């Protein structure tokens, strides 16, 4: 089977997965109590007014019709009205995306760069002093709750030394766009997220590299007298970094988890805090749309990593 057919088949499975996950999300949300009535909490609301509210959110229709509308909406971007903001869920979410990207992109880049460097340094002398130090460092942050790390950073740098702002994305006093102001607010949340993610990622890189170094072709390369430097960088590194590509795909899903906690601690106005707020407000259209977006992100990034992996690794024959 050729590459195109493989991509096609994988895309088909991914699309089916999107529909199933979407349906599951819909089912979970509609089992949930509450809805717009509980958001517009007013015990004296008249039945007529209540009916009007339900009608304006399309909740007077039978459930199967709501489901079809939901599926249709997911494709067209018409995700319904937010119960809380009474604005289209699409707009609510779109307004939060830049903040999350501003936090995630630098953190992800730092994670990949630092994680790979740490992995390389570790396996140059496996179980040596530096390796043990770096591994302990990784265990350390791997076991650390990101919200607690955030709290410690905030306490030290914002409360005791007062050198960095205590959360938020911009200063309240800022009147115009100021890059330095954004940077100051970025330092602590990016540090917290990166430390936690690097812990995870560097351990993956390390174990993947170690496995490759154990292979016979490395022995061959050494046996034919290649300098260790070439053995490592030409033979081991290329193949050892391959599996970490797959892990990056799975990372996208964990980003949301990290984002919810980090954004809550640092009062960062992104998708994570929106997810948390919307769940507690029972603002289902927004929650559904958010779940949908993140499910799609995970599925698509898995799809891309699978394909990239297939291209990078010539041993994979697409069948």
């Amino acid at each position, binding site marked *: 089977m050729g590459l195109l057919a493989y991509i096609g088949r994988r895309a088909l499975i991914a699309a089916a*997965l999107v529909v*199933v*996950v979407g349906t*599951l*999300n819909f089912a*979970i*949300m509609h*089992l*949930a*109590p509450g809805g717009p009535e509980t958001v517009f909490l007013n015990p004296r609301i008249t039945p007529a007014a209540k009916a009007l509210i339900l009608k304006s959110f399309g909740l007077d229709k039978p459930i199967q019709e709501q489901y079809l509308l939901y599926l249709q909406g997911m494709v067209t971007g018409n995700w319904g009205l937010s119960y809380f903001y009474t604005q289209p869920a699409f707009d609510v979410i779109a307004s939060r995306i830049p903040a999350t990207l501003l936090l995630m992109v630098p953190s992800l880049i730092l994670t990949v760069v630092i994680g790979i460097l740490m992995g390389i340094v570790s396996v140059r002398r*496996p*179980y*040596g002093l530096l390796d043990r130090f770096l591994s*302990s460092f990784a*265990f*350390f942050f*791997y*076991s*650390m*709750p990101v*919200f*607690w790390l955030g*709290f*410690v950073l*905030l*306490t030290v740098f914002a*409360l005791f030394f007062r050198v960095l702002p*205590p959360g938020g994305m911009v200063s309240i006093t800022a009147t115009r766009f100021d890059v330095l102001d954004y940077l100051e607010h970025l330092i602590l949340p990016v540090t917290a997220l990166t430390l936690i993610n690097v812990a995870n990622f560097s351990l993956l890189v390390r174990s993947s590299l170690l496995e490759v170094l*154990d292979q016979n072709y490395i022995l061959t390369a050494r046996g034919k007298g290649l300098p260790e430097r070439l053995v490592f960088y030409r033979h081991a590194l290329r193949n050892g970094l391959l599996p970490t590509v797959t892990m990056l795909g*799975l990372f996208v*899903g964990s980003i*949301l*988890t990290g984002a*919810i*906690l980090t954004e*809550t*601690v640092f009062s960062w106005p992104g998708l994570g805090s929106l*997810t*948390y707020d919307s*769940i*507690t407000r*029972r603002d289902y259209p927004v*929650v559904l749309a*958010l*779940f949908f977006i*993140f*499910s799609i992100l*995970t*599925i698509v990034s*898995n799809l891309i990593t699978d394909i990239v992996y297939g291209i990078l690794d010539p041993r994979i024959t697409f069948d």
Partner: protein
Amino acid sequence: MTSELSIYRLRLANFWRGYSRNRGAAFSFFFLIALISIAIFADYLFPRNFEAPDISREMLPPSLSNPLGTDYLGRDQVALIAFGARTSLIIAFAAGGLLAVIGTLAGLLAGYHGGRMEGLIMRFADIFLTIPTLPLILVIVSLTGPSLLNVMFAIGLTSWPVMARVVRSDTLALMKREFIEIEKVMGASARRIVFRHLLPNQLNSIFVYTSLSIPVVILTEAALEFLGLAPLSVSWGFMLNTSLSYWILGTWWMSFIPGFAIFITALAFYFVSEGLKEALNPKLKRRRESLVVQLADRKK
């Protein structure tokens, strides 16, 4: 009888030698034993009314009478941490056990049957891997109501797919081995093959992966409590949640201590899983020895 007993004792000694080679793991083991004992005997160690507010002593920094300070209601944080350990450990073991059982059964079924059954189970696992876990757990708990049991089930029911993947791939590898082929030819039942051969042969790796997932369970539970969606009466995460409202007053101990408890406990479980991995995986040990040989060679 005695000889059997001594074999077990020998095995145990052998295991401990492998395990305690990792000093962090050995230390963590004793730390966790102490923590578990405190959690079990907390009722006898601390006054019954430890949860009663005492406004005259609220938000006191650590001192001799309250080594860990008091919280915003004037309650002794030592007692709160001890009872919080109970919540955290119950959920860690229960949810960890649940995810191990579900993941193992799913993986065994998929690996043994193959074909359509495998496809079905693994796609199902994919679905759970695709929906972001923490928000999913948040939704489940906010639907079913906050209780120890619901939190436990929410975490256990959503975290098994990775375990299933591991068990499946181990099962697939075992299925290709000769002794399974022979059993099949001899007409052994599926139940016999699965429970007499496939399961016992990978118990070690199941054990290691379960212990590896326990720190994750602890962190997830703490995150739930921290977000305030499952306010269990006494828990480390919820202590952090309530204390953050007073953060600006400089009451660092109220947030630092519960968070530190979460961190240290998760770290200890992580070290234990590392120790288990090294003790139960002879291949890894051999590799370490061969590396020592390599290094010794290089020095010459």
